[in-house]
């Protein structure tokens, strides 16, 4: 970490150092990749709870009388149907219908929205919003005003209830409420990126370390552990959630990525719509499949899917699954290879390994 001077620290940096986290450079930030160990952290989230620092994510405020119509035009999901107190998953698309980024849109008020974007894309996305701005819309890159904690796992509601008066059962999935956690104002959102129940807490940086410590304190008896980006990635992959730079980027469309449900063609025009319409007529040429490596080994991002020695597809994410104890992954393959049960061959560093196309998500929590 030679140029740590230029890397940014989250408001929880001191907490990570105290906890003995292994810190790595991630998208220009010093982030904890693991504390006690990836497997233990992963398992804690699946069976009890884990606490993540995801303060590196970007937050933009979009305000004004034309905020709704502006977001309706620059994102493909239907913002008109998004009620105050709710969030939805959406995207920024290029004119070609490919991804600039994926994001969450929260409706804070009739004329105010919070948009949450990937850390690596903050500058690009904000520039994108600016360049498409029209009408009475105020845009603010508020990323530095927010710390973001994710409390994830089956014990999350019980643990969080010890530090807040807010009626948590009333906050259903993809809804949020303003409240206080350990005396600090927070936007409590029932969202996450792990395939488990849980909350994301948007709050001012100053109070975040105290909330972090208090949560670990009151959740310790439930098995709550701090969890790093390593576990975050294996958890999201088991849940088959897309990650920008892996499953989605400016060469992939929502149709191929299996994210067509976020695209509301009927709502009217939006950036990328005409390209997506043209493509939908033809049907996606390739699709994103889930696979299980049946030979010994782990396929990882960039490894080829081969037929008769020729590369016909590519692995977008691959890992050993701590929950399912198998090597799993996602890959783009031609439609003909996308059938469940189909055997495919993966080129893993020059070695050909057999894999089977299986259903996604790989992991689904029991309700």
């Amino acid at each position, binding site marked *: 970490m030679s140029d740590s001077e230029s890397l940014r620290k989250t408001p929880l940096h001191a907490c990570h150092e105290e906890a003995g986290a292994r810190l790595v450079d991630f998208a220009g930030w010093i982030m904890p990749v693991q504390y006690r160990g990836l497997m233990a952290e992963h398992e804690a989230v699946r069976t009890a709870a884990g606490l993540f620092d995801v303060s590196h994510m970007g937050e933009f405020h979009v305000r004004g009388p034309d905020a709704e119509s502006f977001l309706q035009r620059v994102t493909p999901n239907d913002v008109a149907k998004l009620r105050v107190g709710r969030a939805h998953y959406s995207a920024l698309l290029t004119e070609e219908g490919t991804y600039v980024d994926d994001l969450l849109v929260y409706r804070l008020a009739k004329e105010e929205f919070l948009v949450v974007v990937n850390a690596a894309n903050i500058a690009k996305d904000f520039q994108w919003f600016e360049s498409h701005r029209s009408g009475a819309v105020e845009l603010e890159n508020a990323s530095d005003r927010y710390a973001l904690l994710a409390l994830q796992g089956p014990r999350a509601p019980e643990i969080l209830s010890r530090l807040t008066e807010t009626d948590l059962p009333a906050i259903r999935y993809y809804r949020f409420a303003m409240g206080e956690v350990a005396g600090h104002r927070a936007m409590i959102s029932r969202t996450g990126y792990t395939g488990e129940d849980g909350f994301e807490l948007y709050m001012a940086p100053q109070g975040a370390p105290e909330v972090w410590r208090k949560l670990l304190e009151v959740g310790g008896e439930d098995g709550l552990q701090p969890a790093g980006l390593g576990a975050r990635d294996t958890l999201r992959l088991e849940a088959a959630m897309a990650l920008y730079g892996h499953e989605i980027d400016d060469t992939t469309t929502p149709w191929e990525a299996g994210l067509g449900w976020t695209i509301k063609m009927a709502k009217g025009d939006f950036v990328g719509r005409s390209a997506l319409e043209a493509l939908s007529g033809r049907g996606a040429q390739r699709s994103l499949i889930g696979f299980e490596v049946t030979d010994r080994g*782990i396929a990882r991002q960039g490894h080829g899917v081969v037929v008769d020695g020729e590369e016909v597809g590519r692995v977008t994410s691959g890992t050993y699954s701590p929950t399912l104890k198998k090597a799993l992954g996602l890959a783009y393959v031609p439609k003909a290879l996308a059938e469940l049960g189909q055997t495919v061959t993966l080129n893993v560093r020059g070695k050909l390994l057999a894999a089977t196309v299986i259903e996604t998500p790989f992991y689904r929590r029991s309700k």
Partner: protein
Amino acid sequence: MYLDEYLYSKEHEWVHVEGETCVLGVTDFAQHQLGDVVFVELPEVGQTFEADDEIGSIESVKAVAELYTPVAGEVVETNEAVVDDPEVLNSDPHNNGWLIKMKIDAGADLSGLMSADQYKEFIDGEDA
């Protein structure tokens, strides 16, 4: 932790020389860097290698590391217990987590390997 009777390589292997044979494994530093190990691939008994040849690989959930031999020789035994239960590499890298036994080549040169003290100094530099 780092036993004085072992020699250590810059690729983070340890070597325990016993007469004409040696036992080879990866160091605690290496297993810690890798994280939870889930796959270990070892060479076949009878294979011969030059020093610094790649002899296998170790995969954790998030990373893959090539395994090199710092010593020229012939593989005479592999630790199948580690292949079956790779977690041993994390919990006991210097003993039960050994990887292979080799018959050392007559002309093998071990002078490039480090003592325990030198290795400790070496990883202090890498950690910073």
